[in-house]
């Protein structure tokens, strides 16, 4: 009986070949774009997801644009529970054109890269970078994007630090896994600092953020408080939080956009729900007489309902199957086009589950009204619909 119903439902589903094809295309497209939009949303959180719980970020309590005195580093290092300290400055340079955006940081090379083991650099390249004051290290994707090789000279136009800068690529780092940002650019903090101190002595010897390595992630709140209390009521008060909280703070600043994309991804499901419900409603209506005949032969209304539901599930399963399997190539293509915007752009497992759930919801909701109608229709009325 079950096998029979499955076969009949499948045959019914594919009865109008053009309609089935159009519906499948619609479902596949909707599930695919839902998957893409979900991937965009998760890409937004990539920084927070990749954050280590053994790292804290200290910044100015006023806001990120205010620097902290470099001698804070020594004081932080002495705090109980802190294992290492490094620092970084946002540079904000422009490579040829403004649209070539990528993040650049002036760092203290040895301690910074030790704090970020996910940026993997060959020992020889690391040594070469540490040796060269004008050297820089770039991510694999970034190097690919502009075709940079080791030894290349990279010109940057400063926006915060006006002038023309140039750096020599000494190393290309690779990410530990697909969640690592391979789109960053690092150079020597001392190089930047000398430039600043020469021109604006008062602005020198400062850093944008301190990165703190801690022994135990469980102590994060305690250590943050210890660090901040060190500088309370000083000229530059600090705000220390876990790297994850720091990254989530960034996400929160553009929260409305994430929210909008999420909303829109549900709208596409609603659209396909309407299309699918329409397909099912029309098919069921055209088959009113057949369903009435089945009922006359003694089949219960429940069987009719299942027949319609299974048909809907089959269509959605095939459509969603196509849509989901197209997600990976599509994400790869879109990821390449947008890698300056989203350095990490991968299909998450949860995205696939969401796609499956969405398809299921579409199938069930599309079948509900037609199934209910077909179950309700009186045999005599149904038979009259012949011809």
């Amino acid at each position, binding site marked *: 009986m079950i096998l029979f119903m499955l076969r009949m439902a499948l045959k*019914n589903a594919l*009865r109008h070949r053009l309609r089935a094809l159009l519906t499948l295309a619609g479902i596949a497209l909707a599930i695919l774009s839902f998957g893409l939009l979900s991937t965009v949303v998760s890409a937004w959180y990539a920084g927070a997801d990749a954050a280590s719980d053994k790292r804290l970020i200290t910044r100015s309590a006023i806001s990120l644009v205010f620097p902290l005195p470099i001698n804070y580093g020594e004081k932080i290092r002495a705090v109980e529970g802190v294992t290492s300290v490094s620092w970084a400055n946002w540079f904000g340079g422009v490579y040829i054109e403004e649209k070539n955006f990528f993040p650049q940081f002036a760092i203290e090379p040895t301690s910074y890269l030790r704090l970020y083991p996910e940026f993997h650099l060959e020992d020889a390249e690391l040594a070469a970078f540490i040796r060269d004051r004008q050297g820089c290290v770039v991510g694999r994707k970034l190097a690919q994007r502009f075709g940079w090789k080791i030894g290349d000279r990279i010109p940057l136009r400063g926006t915060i630090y006006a002038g023309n800068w140039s750096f020599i690529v000494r190393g290309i780092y690779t990410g530990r896994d697909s969640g690592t940002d391979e789109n960053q650019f690092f150079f020597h903090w001392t190089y930047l600092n000398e430039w600043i101190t020469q021109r604006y002595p008062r602005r020198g010897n400062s850093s944008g953020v301190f990165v703190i390595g801690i022994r135990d992630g469980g102590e994060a709140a305690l250590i943050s408080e210890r660090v901040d209390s060190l500088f309370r009521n000083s000229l530059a008060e600090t705000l220390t939080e876990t790297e994850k909280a720091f990254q989530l703070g960034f996400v929160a600043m553009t929260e409305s956009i994430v929210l909008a994309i999420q909303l829109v991804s549900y709208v596409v499901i609603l659209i396909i729900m309407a299309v699918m419900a329409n397909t099912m409603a029309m098919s069921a209506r055209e088959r009113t007489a057949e369903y009435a005949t089945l*009922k*006359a032969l*003694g*089949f*219960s209304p429940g069987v009719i309902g299942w027949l319609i539901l299974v048909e809907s599930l089959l269509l959605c399963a095939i459509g969603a199957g196509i849509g989901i399997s197209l997600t990976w190539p599509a994400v790869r293509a879109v990821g390449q086009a947008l890698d300056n915007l989203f350095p990490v752009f991968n299909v998450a497992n949860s995205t696939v589950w969401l796609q499956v759930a969405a398809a299921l919801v579409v199938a069930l909701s599309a079948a509900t009204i037609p199934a209910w109608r077909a179950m309700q229709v009186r*045999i005599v009325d149904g*038979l009259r619909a012949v011809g």
Partner: protein
Amino acid sequence: MSQPAVSLRHVSKHYLRGGQVIDVLKDIDFDIAPGDFLALMGPSGSGKSTLLNLIAGIDQPSGGQIIVDQVDIATLAEAELADWRASHVGFIFQFYNLMPVLNAQENVELPLMLTTLNARQRKEHASLALEMVGLSDRSSHYPNELSGGQQQRVAIARALVSDPSLIVADEPTGDLDRKSAGEILDLLGQLNTELGKTIIMVTHDGRAAERAHAIRHLEKGELSALEMLQPAKV
């Protein structure tokens, strides 16, 4: 003394159309003996199809009793009625009402899905039924690959495959040419004489009605007297 196969007692049926009560059937009262072959005739709108639907259990009367094989089907609940139809009634429709997505064999098997028979047994029964209507060689054909007469024969095979005692036919020849109609009527006569099925047939074709044992005329919801015919000679 055998019980009547079907007995109707004070059966009435009315509809509400636009706030008006329309009486389709008024106080219908008659018996059909087992093994009978009855033709119901009457002009359009006389209520003959409604009467047939009531006896077949696909419509419910507004009042009265319909006793088929000692069961008052007017009192059965929807689900019970469905089970009852599956085991007691075979249907033949004017437009055959075959499932277009199933082939002949599968269409005939359809009523057997509601029994406890296994797949092999269902196949055997269906083949046998198709053989009886002379369509063994068409068992894998789909309805749109068959002529009207052939489709109706598949429908007859479907009606008898579950071995019901009662077969109802609503204008079974209404959509067929004369030659095919003749073949279908022959087949119905065979079911009646050789298998002893009780048959009730609605028709407006006098030629078709002549094949029955008896004719009843319906006029404005009321039944005329029974008109006995000689059993048709094959």
